[in-house]
Structure formats: C-alpha cells, structure tokens
C-alpha cells in the first residue's frame, strides 16, 4: 500500500506528476488551481527527479512550451482553469494536429468570460468536442475524488502516449480545493534519453541517426490530399479510442427505473441523491462516465432498453445531456432524457437533484 495522506486535489495533481516521472510542467497561475504549481515549486522536483517546473509568461506560452517538450518525446503537462484553457486552445489544436502526447488539466470554474472562481462543469463541450479549430478530439478523463486526481495523471500520460494525442483531466474547483484521504502512487523513474529514443524514436525529435529519415513535427500540410489522409488517420485513432478506452462506473443500476448520469463533482452529489431516493422507495441508479471522450455510449444504450428515463445532472446549462440523447438515438431507443443543473459556480445539493427527479418523472 502506498503512502496515505490528507491532501487537496490540486496538491495531489502536482505530487502525482512528480511520481509518475513527468519531465516538465509549464503553467501560469489562475484560481482555483494555483496550488498545482505552488506545490510543484515547493517540492522542487528538479532536485529530486530532474523534472522541470516553469512559470511561463502566459497560458499561450505555457501550452507552446508543452508542445516543444512533447515533440522531444518528453512527458510534458500544464494545468489551468477555464479562461486559461481557452487561451491554450490554439496550441492544443496544433498539438493534436502534430499528433503529440501531453497532459492538460482543467480545474474548471464558472464562465463565460472571467466568470467566477467557484466550481463549474461548463467546459464540457470545449473538452469533449476538441475545443479549438479543426476536427480533433482529446482523451478526456473526469475524476470524482481526490484519489482519482492522483490516479488519472499517470493514466492520462499512458493513454496520451498510446495514441500520440493530448489527454485532458477535466476536474473542477471543488475537486481542486477539497481534501480527502489519498494513497499516493509509487515513484516511477523518468524515462532516460535512451528509453525515449527506443520507445518514441520513430516520431520524436530525439536526434536523427543516419539510418532513418528526419522526424518532422508539424500540423501544417499544404497538400490537401495528404492533409485529408492525415485527418482520416486522426479519425481512425478516435474510433479506436471509442472502442478501447471507454471507462464508467455503475451504482445501483441493476433494478433502476430511472438513471441519473453525472460526472466529476456532480456524480458525488448524485451518489447521495441515489441514497436519498432509494430511502424514499424510488428505484434510482447512477451512471458515472469516467471518460467523457470517448463517451460511454454503449452502456447508455443498454440502460435505455430497460429504464423509464434519464436525468443528466451537470454544473452547466445542460451539455452532456446531448451526448446521452445521441447515444440513446444511436441505440435505436426512445426514452425521455431530462436535465437538471446549476450554473455560475453554484453546486447543486443532493436534495435538489431528488426533487428535480420527482418533478420530472414521478409526479404524484
């Protein structure tokens, strides 16, 4: 068993980065995730593992530093909160276009604009539909506990390298600020130069031996035939993610008449709502998507075949609800899908969710 600690989600992200053998963190402070870089600066991993921690002059600079480090086959990451992620989207699109692995963490706050520093899930669309310009997708993981903030850092890097694609951890201010018991991961050494060369030498800029052609890292391709072929390759990759990487959790769904769908902080609240509803005799279950892209479409379809209705609970105006409807449509079912949520930094309470469920489905 690893080391047990009481830590904030943001602190854990930093600790997990060091322990998973991350080579470089490039960031710019913003509430409610500033503790990520603060913790890294305090820990001074450059003395311990050689990991670089750098405060860039802006979010735009930090994502492009990630781009550069990723091009060399390094484990590079950044973190920010909603407005900062918007600034990064150009760079993220370039990284996706250049097919490079990296980790981007969004500890969301309420928007639009500068919005509020309180928790939100209003960047769902931005995260799961790509975010920037062009046809690309990110692998999106949604932690729901401080423990998962730890576990998903290593997992995100693993998936990013498997697909040569940026991965995102989509958290929110509540997960960043709250403390829970966490079992920290064991240390993994950073990859040596030789290891990077061996693992990623086919694409990374690790120094060109005479025996092979130059590795060129770019998202630019002016020959449209080649550019279309590139796009087809990207799409095949996203398809493969949809087949192999879907992750979700089911709570009390076996006999459920109604299914609540919620991720991250909302899913924690809804776990309590399920308890309350069941105590009142309502058969309610919870589907918690862990990967938001790829979205757990198949299980939504399967559940649609045996339930009376879905309630999507989100800290936004209703975004994931569209993916649930698409999944049900694709599965050939016709089941009502309702939405309940709060916006602007307000977190719904477990009781509110139960009331909404009753209002929408169970009028007495």
């Amino acid at each position, binding site marked *: 068993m690893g080391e047990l600690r*009481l830590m904030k989600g943001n602190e854990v992200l930093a600790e997990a980065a060091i322990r998973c053998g991350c080579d470089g963190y490039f960031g710019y402070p913003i509430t409610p995730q500033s503790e990520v870089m603060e913790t890294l600066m305090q820990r001074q991993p450059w003395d311990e593992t050689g990991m670089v921690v750098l405060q860039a002059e802006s979010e735009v600079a930090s994502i492009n530093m990630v781009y550069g480090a990723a091009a060399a086959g390094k484990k590079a990451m950044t973190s920010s909160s909603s407005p900062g992620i918007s600034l990064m989207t150009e760079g993220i699109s370039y990284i996706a276009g250049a097919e490079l692995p990296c980790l981007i963490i969004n500890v969301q706050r309420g928007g639009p604009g500068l919005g509020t*520093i309180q928790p939100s899930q209003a960047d769902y669309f931005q995260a799961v539909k790509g975010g920037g310009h062009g046809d690309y997708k990110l692998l999106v993981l949604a932690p729901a506990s401080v423990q998962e903030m730890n576990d998903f850092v290593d997992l995100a890097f693993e998936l990013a390298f498997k697909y040569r694609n940026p991965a995102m951890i989509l958290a929110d201010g509540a997960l960043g600020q*709250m403390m829970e018991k966490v079992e920290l991961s064991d240390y993994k050494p950073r990859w040596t130069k030789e290891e990077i060369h061996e693992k990623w030498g086919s694409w990374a800029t690790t120094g060109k031996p005479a025996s092979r052609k130059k590795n060129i890292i770019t998202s630019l391709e002016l020959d449209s035939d080649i550019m279309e072929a590139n796009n087809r390759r990207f799409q095949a990759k996203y398809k493969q993610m949809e087949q192999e990487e879907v992750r979700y959790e089911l709570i009390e769904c076996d006999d459920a008449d109604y299914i609540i769908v919620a991720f991250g902080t909302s899913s*924690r*609240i809804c776990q309590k709502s399920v308890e309350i509803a069941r105590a009142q005799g309502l058969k309610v279950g919870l589907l918690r998507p862990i990967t938001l892209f790829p979205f757990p479409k198949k299980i939504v379809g399967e559940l649609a075949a045996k339930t009376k209705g879905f309630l999507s609970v989100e800290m936004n105006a209703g975004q994931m609800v569209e993916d649930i409807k698409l999944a049900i449509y694709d599965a050939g079912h016709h089941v009502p899908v309702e939405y309940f949520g709060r916006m602007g930094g307000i977190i719904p309470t477990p009781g509110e969710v139960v009331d909404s469920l009753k209002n929408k489905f169970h009028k007495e």
Partner: protein
Amino acid sequence: MTEEMIIAGFGGQGVLSMGKILAYSGIMEDKEVTWFPSYGPEMRGGTANVTVIISDNRISSPILHEFDTAIILNQQSLNKFEKMVKPGGVLLYDPNGISKPPTRTDINIYKVEGTKTAVEMGNPRVFNMIVFGSYLKVRPILSLDNVEKGLQKSLPERYHRLIPLNLEAIKKGEEIVESIQTV
C-alpha cells in the same frame, strides 16, 4: 458510522484547521474523510466554513444540505446553518458575540465558552482546540490517541512542541461543554 458536519465562523478562528485535524484524526482511525472548504472572496468577506465528513464507507457528496453536527462560532453562521442541522442532530456553539441564540427545539444544543476560556488559558490561539474538545465530548467518534496522531500529521514539525498545549485545550473543552437542550 457516518458523521456529516459543518464548522463555521470568522476567518482566523481556526475553522479550517480544526476541520483538518478532525479529518487527519479520522484517517488515523482508518476511516474515509472529506474536507470541503469555502474558498475565494467568500472567505475574504470574513466568514469561513468547512464541511467535514468522516465515515466507515465510501463518501458520496462533499456538498450537503443537512448536517449531523454544526459547530457554530459566530452569529452569521448560526443564522445560516441552524436550520440545516438534521432533526435530532447536534448544534455546538460559542456564545461569544451571539446575540440571538439558537431556537430550534428538535435538535441537541450545546454551549462552549471557548473564547473566554482561551483567554483564561492565556493563549487565544487554542480557542479552536477547546471547541474541538467539546465536540469530542458530545460526539466521541474519535479516540484521543488518534487525535494526537492527527495533530502530529497536520501540524508542521516546527509546531510539534505545541501539541501538549493543544491536548490540554482539548481536555479543557471536554470539561467545560454545557448541555443546553437534549432531545
């Protein structure tokens, strides 16, 4: 066992750190814990509160609309959280600065003269540990041994010399807590 509680008062009263010591003590008892603070401008406005959940099982929502226990250290917090105590639950408050005491008749109410006692002990900073002691007396969910370990874990090493003083304050709190109403 699941204990869902809110600790609320002014910034500087040690609300967040009391919650942290509680959570750490919970870990020492092998329990699941969640500590969810108010943060940002809400805190800078003067009030601070933290939700602490200690449970034998996996913890669901960190955001709650009702609590087993409320530890209340100022009037604003009393106004806000008295109504959110579950019927039959516990409300523990320090009467210092409270002009309108709690009025609910369906909850257990306890009073601790924490501010006054801390001054008498010659160290206002142990105020939160006095209140913590009163809480442990009323809701003995954690052993004092584990609280001591929790203190060791949550305080930086340079403050470890203050642990005996903190334990003394906890014991004082256990002694002075007064029951106002039991249901």
